[in-house]
């Protein structure tokens, strides 16, 4: 009995916080818009009993999903979001790996402090940190002022409101999510393996490439998924740092919801986004499972 209760707890959480909201969104995505509160129809009327429920279900249809296939905006936005996510995940890895490596190689007594430094930015609101980047990257911002002052450039660079600013913002924001799993993989690594590789005639680089990188693979994979999955649905960074040309599904969703007041189509976009995200998550889980099996 007690055991059943204990097991029930996570399932209740899952039901209340994931499945119920998902079915509400799914239901709205099958409805039609209307100028009312709430702005869609039909709404479930339980007072009419069984007939009300039947009437409710008979009014639902897949029209909105058909609509998503008719306008090329949606798949272009999905594609562009995936592209931005892939590129920025790669960039985050390139930047994050050396940092994690350096941390893992640092003397043991420094490591907690270094770890602290990576986590420290989380103590400031995410929104404020993105706004700070606006101040750094704008035409009259700090970066341009320094570059102009040192004479490296003669006219200010336009970075803010371009795709580059979006990448800078994403890499900066998600960097800790890459560093931490890679670091924990590297830290666990046995240093004598490198010595062995070098004894067997590997150069330093070969030892890194043939021993260190494969051993840190689980960390790399975990980091990549932790970065890529939220970036696909990212809305704040592209809308604050990006130009109007940055097409991302999060923004399209916003526009369906706020400009068109079309909650049903917005919900359909969200359901499809969820399905797209489920694929990497399943892959991730399978990888984790393989990992635990391998460890045993």
């Amino acid at each position, binding site marked *: 009995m007690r055991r059943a209760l204990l097991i029930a707890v996570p399932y209740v959480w899952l039901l209340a916080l994931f499945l119920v909201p998902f079915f509400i969104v799914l239901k709205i995505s099958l409805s039609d818009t209307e100028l*009312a*509160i709430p702005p869609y129809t039909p709404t479930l009327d339980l007072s009419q009993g069984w007939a009300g429920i039947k009437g409710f279900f008979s009014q639902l249809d897949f029209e909105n999903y058909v609509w998503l296939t008719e306008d090329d905006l949606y798949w272009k936005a999905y594609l562009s979001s995936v592209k931005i996510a892939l590129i920025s995940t790669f960039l985050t890895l390139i930047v994050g790996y050396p940092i994690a490596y350096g941390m893992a190689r640092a003397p043991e007594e420094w490591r907690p402090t270094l770890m602290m430094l990576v986590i420290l930015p989380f103590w400031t609101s995410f929104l404020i940190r993105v706004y700070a980047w606006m101040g750094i990257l704008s035409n009259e911002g700090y970066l341009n002022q320094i570059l102009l002052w040192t004479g490296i450039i003669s006219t200010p660079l336009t970075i803010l409101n371009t795709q580059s600013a979006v990448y800078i913002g994403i890499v900066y924001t998600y960097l800790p999510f890459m560093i931490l799993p890679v670091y924990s993989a590297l830290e666990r690594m046995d240093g004598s393996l490198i010595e062995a590789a070098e004894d067997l005639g590997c150069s330093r680089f070969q030892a890194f490439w043939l021993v260190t990188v494969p051993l840190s693979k689980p960390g790399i994979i975990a980091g990549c998924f932790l970065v890529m999955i939220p970036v696909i649905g990212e809305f704040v960074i592209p809308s604050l740092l990006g130009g109007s*040309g940055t097409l991302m599904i999060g923004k399209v969703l916003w526009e369906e919801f706020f*400009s068109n007041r079309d909650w049903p189509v917005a919900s359909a976009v969200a359901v499809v986004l969820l399905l797209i995200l489920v694929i990497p998550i399943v892959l991730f889980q399978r990888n984790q499972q393989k990992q635990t099996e391998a460890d045993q």
Partner: protein
Amino acid sequence: MKLKMLTMTAVVALGASAAFAEEVRVYNWSDYIDEDLLKKFEEETGLTLIYDVFDSNEVLETKMLAGGSGYDVVVPTGTFLQRQIQAGAFQELDKAKLANSGNLWDVIQDRTSGYDPNNAYSINYMWGTTGLGVNVAKVKEVLGDDVALNSMDLVLKPENMEKLSSCGVHFLDAPTEIIPMTLQYIGEDPDSHDKDVIAKTEEILTAVRPHIQKFHSSEYINALANGDICVAVGWSGDILQARDRAAEADNGVEIEYHPFAEGSLMWFDQMAIPVDAPNPEGAHKFLDFILDANNMAAASNYVYYANGNKASQEFLEEDVIGDPAIYPDETTMQNLYITTPYPAKTQRVVTRLWTKIKSGT
């Protein structure tokens, strides 16, 4: 003893909920009031004022249509107000509780009754025009001294925009402002709801699109004031605030606001009470406070927008009432136009067109 404790808790809880009811929650546009007025309201009425801000009608509308926003007073623009009234989002005002409603200006009342018949649901807070904010020195440097700073040519002619792109141009991220403006430019009815007519704006806007740095509805205030951009298509009062911020910062940036010579869009921000407001009594008190001639004048003197309060005009400072950019002269007034809300189907066409113009897809 236990019972006594219980009753005491109940009394405390009741007291707490009574105190809770004495809050008034106001949801207004950002940078849109003199904050001293908020303190004054609390002192005069003893109510606790919770004041939140938004920067787009769309955000407000979504909250209204979702219901249960928890706000007692909200401030939608006329076209949005009209649609939200149709959706049943507001309650009729109780004029008996608005002792100061006689202060309202009939000229503005007349125009707003187009959105809110008989002005039954709302009072006018402020009104203004959509026009051009220019950094005079930079624009003249780029386009020469004799450029017309009040013409739509400045932002809708590709050859001008190509040159201006070097110093930065922002447009409002509001299709309901920019599309009527473009229609006015090509001589069509700015309030057209005809899809084919609306589609004509695409060519004009796509041609200047590469030279527009950003579409945003509030960032241009700071960007103009800091000298980050040299031209913005924006709302009158916001640009005048940018002008004042630049003057205060004394950074050598000189900003001017001009309504379009071709005719500008006139808009009205209306205060209304949501149908499910938790404290409609307090909401009426807030509206009556705003209707007070002195208070309304203080707000206008602070934000540089014209208001719909005739009695407040004698308290307005000369640089507000005397500035034709805020209170336009008779001929400019004749040139101003208004728009009505798009039906849902047309709205979808407009949003889609807007996305296409902005992102090229």
